[in-house]
């Protein structure tokens, strides 16, 4: 079924919307959830919750890119689930490594202006990403949006694990420099 037809089903409150979403984007969302949670049961729950959240969001929302819209819901749910389960300390999972890597970019301190910063930060991220060459840009997104493992990225980009790690490290350094250059200390 085409995406616009699935969106229409949500809008007319037809529950077939959920089964169609699950059939078309179930594995896509499952991959995102599993990359973050590294746990089948937790990942399945987040994916199931994704359809519920989509049901509650449409209407009023009418996403132009359904895959990204659903993937984003799954991602947010998975992060929240991760936070709940790892309040005390982190383990050695894939997502733990990703968050450690992102510490290269952030200060780790609380900031009273964070609410304002996050909306501006989103736009700056887009500007930064648009300045990257394609391969580096999509490598970054695969790691920090899809939470892919280093080896999966290396396979996708036909290169070595070491090359991916080095490239990502450089992009993080560039990102930090980009944000600081524009007055953002995050």
């Amino acid at each position: 079924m085409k995406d616009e037809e699935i969106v229409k089903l949500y809008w007319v409150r037809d529950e077939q919307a959920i089964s169609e979403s699950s059939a078309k984007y179930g594995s896509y969302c499952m991959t995102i959830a599993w990359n973050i949670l590294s746990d089948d049961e937790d990942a399945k729950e987040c994916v199931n919750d994704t359809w519920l959240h989509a049901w509650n969001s449409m209407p009023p929302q009418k996403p132009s890119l359904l895959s990204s819209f659903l993937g984003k819901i799954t991602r947010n749910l998975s992060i929240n689930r991760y936070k709940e389960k790892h309040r005390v300390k982190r383990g050695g999972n894939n997502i733990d490594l990703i968050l450690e890597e992102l510490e290269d970019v952030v200060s780790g301190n609380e900031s009273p202006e964070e609410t304002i910063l996050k909306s501006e930060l989103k736009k700056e991220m887009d500007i930064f990403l648009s300045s990257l060459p394609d391969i580096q840009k999509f490598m970054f997104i695969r790691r920090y949006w899809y939470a892919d493992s280093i080896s999966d990225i290396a396979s996708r980009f036909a290169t070595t694990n070491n090359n991916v790690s080095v490239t990502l490290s450089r992009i993080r350094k560039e990102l930090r420099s980009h944000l600081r250059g524009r007055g953002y200390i995050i």
Partner: protein
Amino acid sequence: MKSEELFEVLGDINENDIKIAATFTTKKKLSKVRLLPYACAAAALLIVIISIPMIMTFNIDDTEQTGNTTSVITADPGMVYDIILDSGDPSGNTTDNSVDTDGSPVTYDDFYPNDYTVPENIRVIRADIPNPSGTNMTSREFLNGEAHWEWWCDYKEWYSASQELNHDLNDYYLSMMEQTLVSDEKNTVCSPLNTFIAFSVLAEISDGNTRQQILDMLGVSDIENLRTIVSTLWNSNYINTPEIKSILANSIWLNESLTYNDDTLNTLADKYYVASFIGDPGNTDMSEALQNWTNHNTGGLLEESVKELNLDPTTVMAIVSTIYYKAMWSFEFNEEATTQEMFHGICRDSVADMMHTDLLCSVYSTENFTSLGLPLTDSGSMYFYLPNDGVDINSLASDPYIINAIEHHTLEEHYDEHRKNCIVHMSVPKFNISYKTDLLDMLTVLGVTDSLDPKLSDFTPLTGDADEIYISRAEHAAMVEIDEHGVTGAAYTDIMLEGGAPEIEYEIDFILDRPFMFIITGYDGSILFSGIIRNM
């Protein structure tokens, strides 16, 4: 901020990028690179000839010295100084010489800027041009290795600086396009950047009102500012990697019987990357050297035209500026999807090879045109402009909104009311066009008159040997060719097949089956080439 929060913020990045990243892979793309290495090939050439008046007696004694220059030059009375230089090939098809029989380009992998032959009787002062990046590497090795990152980090500094400058050059770009692209029925193409750099060299060798008129045409306040601009433009648009060729080159061809101002020649070499060739312009060796140099720096794309380049014995100076460009689409057309369709030209309807693709992209619309840009790997984009019904294609050449349609990835663009993300079903014809323009009329229209008049011109920074020298010839030739070469089943097409058609609120057909305009930009937004296709 904590890393978890940054991870959350990253969740809101551009949805198009997320979708493309879902299926982006370099495997197929890189395996094809060596076989089908480019999607867009272009070259341009600008020649300015400075000579002495057509009929005169010219006798300068070596006791007449001006500044750093001394010379003895004698010309016969009554000699006709007619310098015939030709460039470009209006008949088209100039690219055959640039490819091997298997379709691979001869010069794609490694290009050495100073690797051209010069006879011993010609003295050469080579420009200090950067070495190529990623030599002896395939595209895959380059893109996946450290060399690409190192190149990009250096390059980023240049294009960031140049992005700011380009806003100031827009008036010149528009003037240039208006003067060269307007036509009744011919296909026209030019390289605004190429002409800007060549006329900048001309400004450097002139003085007084002659220089001021050129600066006014270029929209630059003074010569120091011009030097900074050209240096920045040059560095942000000179790219020589296994993935892309954007080769800028400048040269001056000098008459050995004259003495030239060393300070000026040094400035040309330092600030404008100008190579100097000194010899006897009446000797065939000099003309052959000029042809070798020009062919080398245009990748052979203008080879047929270059054969006609010959210097005249009485040339005081020839400025030759070139640009050679080859790049790949970031998201290529599916070669198997190309069909033969009717193109409704101004003169006639004709059959064209029409390439097709579906893509998600930013579409810029005004009451006069709709446009979108196809990104080119490690470079800018090629923008296509389709006039709305009833709008004259010629009017686009001077429409300031065509410049606004060029994306610079700024915050302001997020809020531009003319810009909208759309699902686009695009069809564009393969084409190969070339065009030659006499720029003397254009110079007059744009207020550059003194340099055309031997009584008023002032080229004393070049040489004090010869009075009453003037521009006798200024010609610009350019060619552009595009095709679908690249990946079969490109990333965007894959996405559309796997993800289905997104919501249709912003879905358009963009069918270039009637006259349209195009602009090819560098990463910094410089207008490398622009043209209007009227017939196929």
